[in-house]
């Protein structure tokens, strides 16, 4: 088969998967940790309540998918710092296949994790539904690609691993606490809920939670998918433009401004969601169901 960008992407994807399979840390972060979350939080918080099991599954799926953000940025910076990318630069290979293979391999490796998480909830914790599997698959697909592309932007705009870790931590905290992935958005003050609509992770978290708790159809999460899809396109192109092969090539200051352009689609979605109020209503409706179940299960007041 003659090489072209697609075959080169696939060649690199296969090698990346092979390398990940030889890395113990990969198994820990991609499988052991999410399962540990499930085995800890489901018995502690859900206590057999169906809606809660589904809600925790949604949150754990969100964390697994968002993990793409960390893994890919760190791997790309490591490869650049070690001079590995330089060797690839000598080959007839552009930045596109290099970046696309990161995203594709990451996606293919997330799928088994997602499947295991759903199966554990279904078989171990006796969740009665599968969630809406079609909507889940689409959200996982677009979500993993979007967060991988965000990670690649960070890798392209930072100069050292230390800087990468620092910026990753900062962004990750925002994703984690302002998206509903760790704490339900409905419990926050209204102004934080409004800010959350500008955070890319919110679209993944609320989409996945709707698909697991309310069996939301693809049509019902279409807006979440659209936000993530536009995020992928913008973030991928920005990371391709900012990509650096050389360890000593420093990111120019304007690169960081370019990186912010990846947020523009979410700025637009944030304005729209705040104006329409539909997402806010959905979040509160989903939370009311959860709270209702909690009250039903609570001991009667004396």
């Amino acid at each position: 088969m003659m090489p072209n960008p697609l075959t080169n992407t696939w060649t690199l994807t296969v090698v990346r998967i092979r390398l990940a399979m030889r890395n113990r840390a990969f198994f820990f972060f991609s499988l052991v940790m999410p399962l540990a979350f499930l085995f800890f939080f489901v018995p502690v918080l859900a206590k057999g309540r169906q809606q809660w099991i589904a809600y925790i599954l949604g949150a754990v799926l969100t964390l697994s998918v968002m993990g793409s953000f960390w893994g890919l940025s760190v791997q790309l910076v490591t490869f650049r710092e070690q001079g590995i990318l330089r060797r690839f630069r000598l080959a007839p290979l552009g930045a596109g296949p290099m970046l696309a293979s990161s995203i594709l391999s990451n996606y293919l490796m997330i799928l088994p994790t997602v499947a295991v998480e759903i199966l554990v909830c279904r078989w171990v914790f006796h969740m009665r539904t599968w969630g809406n599997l079609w909507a889940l698959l689409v959200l996982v697909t677009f979500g993993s690609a979007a967060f991988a592309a965000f990670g690649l932007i960070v890798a392209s705009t930072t100069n050292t691993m230390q800087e990468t870790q620092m910026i990753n931590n900062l962004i990750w905290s925002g994703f984690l606490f302002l998206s509903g992935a760790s704490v339900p958005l409905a419990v926050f003050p209204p102004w934080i809920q409004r800010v959350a609509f500008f955070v890319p992770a919110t679209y993944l978290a609320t989409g996945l939670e709707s698909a697991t708790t309310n069996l939301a159809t693809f049509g019902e999460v279409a807006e979440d998918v659209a936000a993530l899809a536009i995020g992928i396109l913008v973030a991928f192109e920005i990371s391709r433009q900012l990509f650096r092969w050389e360890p000593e090539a420093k990111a120019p200051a304007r690169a960081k401004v370019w990186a912010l352009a990846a947020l523009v689609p979410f700025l637009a979605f944030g304005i729209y969601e705040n104006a329409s109020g539909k997402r806010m209503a959905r979040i509160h409706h989903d939370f009311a169901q959860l709270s209702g179940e909690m009250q039903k299960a609570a001991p009667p007041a004396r």
Partner: protein
Amino acid sequence: MGEPIIQAENLVKNYGTVAALRGVSFAIEEGEVFGLLGPNGAGKTTTVEILEGMRTADAGRAHVCGLDPEKSGSAYKERIGAVLQSTSLPDKLRVHEAIELFAQFYRQRTDTDQLLRRFQLDEKRDAFYSQLSGGQKQRLALAMALVNDPRVVFLDEPTAGLDPQVRREIYTIIEEMRRERKTVLLTTHYIEEAERLCDRVAIVDYGRVIALGTPRELKGKSAGTTRIEVRLARPMTDGALANLEGVADCREFSGTYILHSRRPPQTIVALVKRLEAEENELHSLEMFSPSLEDVFIELTGRRLRD
């Protein structure tokens, strides 16, 4: 002679305020093994990386295989192979996987099993990159440079830091490339490497080519002189050794006096007499026939490894 396969014309490159190249020019014919010889920081790697398309020259023109390395993209990369000054690959990549991976990026491919055998890597084919010795890693880098059967091969200090036995193995590989009529541009700071392997050598210093020719032609510039290196118990007064019979040139480098003599026996006799007169002692004396090192010393007043 046809059109040169590699042409560098007046290449200039600055890194901030540091001028790495100040107008490097040379032309290489197809099938030649051409050496860039010079000390560290002379501009050899910058020159090669501009020719590989990895760096952009601030001024000047580079042409390889009739293409502009910087602008020709994949079409250019299909034609060349290269060993970087330091090659890194993922630790958990196996030897055969590395060769197969890189081969898949090219339209024209060499049989990977044949490459493994040729570079004596077949026994290590399943070893991880992290498990290889320095010499094995360098042999793998050479094998990867040939996966596309390139017309032009760039070797940037391919033997630096390797032990003499591995270095000789790599010399054999480069000699094979010459027999295959591949054009090789080699950078080195090892005199013996340049003398043994290169059809022509450009001596580079402070970003300029200061001499260019076959090793024989270059050494001819020091014709008739023999290098005598002496170490003494006490330093000699300025000019004392330069005035000895037959001495054409005398310089001191870190306690070693290097004399270039047209009449070595007379110089040695005069040296011994002089030392006796000054009650000084001779710690060591070595004689060398003219080498590229002498050419470099004559041109720059410094040794190559200073």
